[in-house]
């Protein structure tokens, strides 16, 4: 740990610079006119933070070069080759890999000697959030690409959900393990059990949620991976990890709320109630159902409509329909 505290002043200055770029990047991503530029800015921030970190490496540089090259190759290949309509599930997959990275970082830190009680707690939290993000994102990917068809009610789902609820007390146990192992009998290889349990818990977290709600869930998992990165930053005493991680964590959470609202749902409803029961429930909250129709039917309905509300979304952009819609709109 001691070498981490003396990160040179230059590194910290660059970290401050890239934190500012990240903030500006996210801000610009939220407006259509500046979104592309915002993405470039945040990529520049990422590059400078990574490059300056490479000045003080502790592991074998061959490991790093191999990892970055291979990872960059795989990531770029997937990103370039993937079909436009398959991008949302790819975002889920990439996000899962980010979660897996923090999971492995925390695991590696667990193996280093002399962790304080506080660091131990941080390691466990990072493992938990990173692990849930990884396996949860895999399920989200599987559901969006229609590889996983498990839903609410199947016995497999119910078993997975039980593991999720089992993981919560397990998390509390492992966080306080150093202090309570003098009172309670300690489990020798509890950490490995916990790693496995975390991954299964992530499956149980996402599996009961319906495919239509996946975009909101992916946004939530994205926020979680940011929080995991921020915790890893606290663990490694690194500013830029904390800033970028908590920015993603907080903005991802807000985005999740906005997306859920756009669907007339609350997050609690999406996570713990599910789509089928949502339509049955009555109350003050308005509920609706998406009804896919054919082009001819749509024409008949729209012809007789007195007013039409168009809600543009990612699908419209993919279909390149936004300009046509805008032109038609201008005619009325």
């Amino acid at each position: 740990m001691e070498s981490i505290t003396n990160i040179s002043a230059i590194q910290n200055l660059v970290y401050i610079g890239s934190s500012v770029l990240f903030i500006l990047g996210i801000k610009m991503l939220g407006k259509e006119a500046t979104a592309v530029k915002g993405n470039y800015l945040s990529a520049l921030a990422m590059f400078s933070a990574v490059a300056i970190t490479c000045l003080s490496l502790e592991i074998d540089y061959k490991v790093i070069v191999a990892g970055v090259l291979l990872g960059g190759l795989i990531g770029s290949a997937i990103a370039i080759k993937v079909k436009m309509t398959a991008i949302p599930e790819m975002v889920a997959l990439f996000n899962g890999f980010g979660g897996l990275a923090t999971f492995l970082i925390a695991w590696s830190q667990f193996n280093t000697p002399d962790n304080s009680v506080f660091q131990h707690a941080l390691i466990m939290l990072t493992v938990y959030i990173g692990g849930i993000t990884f396996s949860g994102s895999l399920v989200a990917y599987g559901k969006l690409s229609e590889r996983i068809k498990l839903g609410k009610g199947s016995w497999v789902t119910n078993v997975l959900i039980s593991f999720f609820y089992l993981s919560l007390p397990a998390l509390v146990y492992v966080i306080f393990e150093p202090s309570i192992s003098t009172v309670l009998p300690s489990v020798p290889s509890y950490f490995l059990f916990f790693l496995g349990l975390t991954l299964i818990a992530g499956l149980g977290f996402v599996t009961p949620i319906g495919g239509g709600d996946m975009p909101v869930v992916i946004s939530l998992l994205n926020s979680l991976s940011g929080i995991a990165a921020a915790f890893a930053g606290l663990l490694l005493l690194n500013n830029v990890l904390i800033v970028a991680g908590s920015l993603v964590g907080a903005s991802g959470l807000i985005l999740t709320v906005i997306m859920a609202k756009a669907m007339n749902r609350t997050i609690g409803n999406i996570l713990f109630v599910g789509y089928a029961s949502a339509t049955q429930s009555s109350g003050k909250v308005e509920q609706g159902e998406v009804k896919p129709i054919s082009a001819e039917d749509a024409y008949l309905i729209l012809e007789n409509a007195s007013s039409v509300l168009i809600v543009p979304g990612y699908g419209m952009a993919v279909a390149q329909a936004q300009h046509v819609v805008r032109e038609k709109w201008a005619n009325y």
Partner: protein
Amino acid sequence: MEMYILLGFVLLLSIFLGLELIAKVPSTLHTPLMSGANAISGIALVGALMLSGDGQTQNLLAFGAILFASINVFGGYLVTNRMLSMFKKK
């Protein structure tokens, strides 16, 4: 411990900043913004580069962390860029 209090301060301020940044976003940009934020969470790559320790296990864990974080970073930014290019006016 003083270090942690200082870093906790940074953490809290960034959280509030993050909450403020995404106040009014048009719904067309929800998916690209999510993807862009996802790329930023690839910052875990910096953490992976800071790992230390000897032996095969530690090297393997570091390699895995670097590999997956790099996939997240490269894939995330490229995909976001592709998505945003859809919004350009023809």
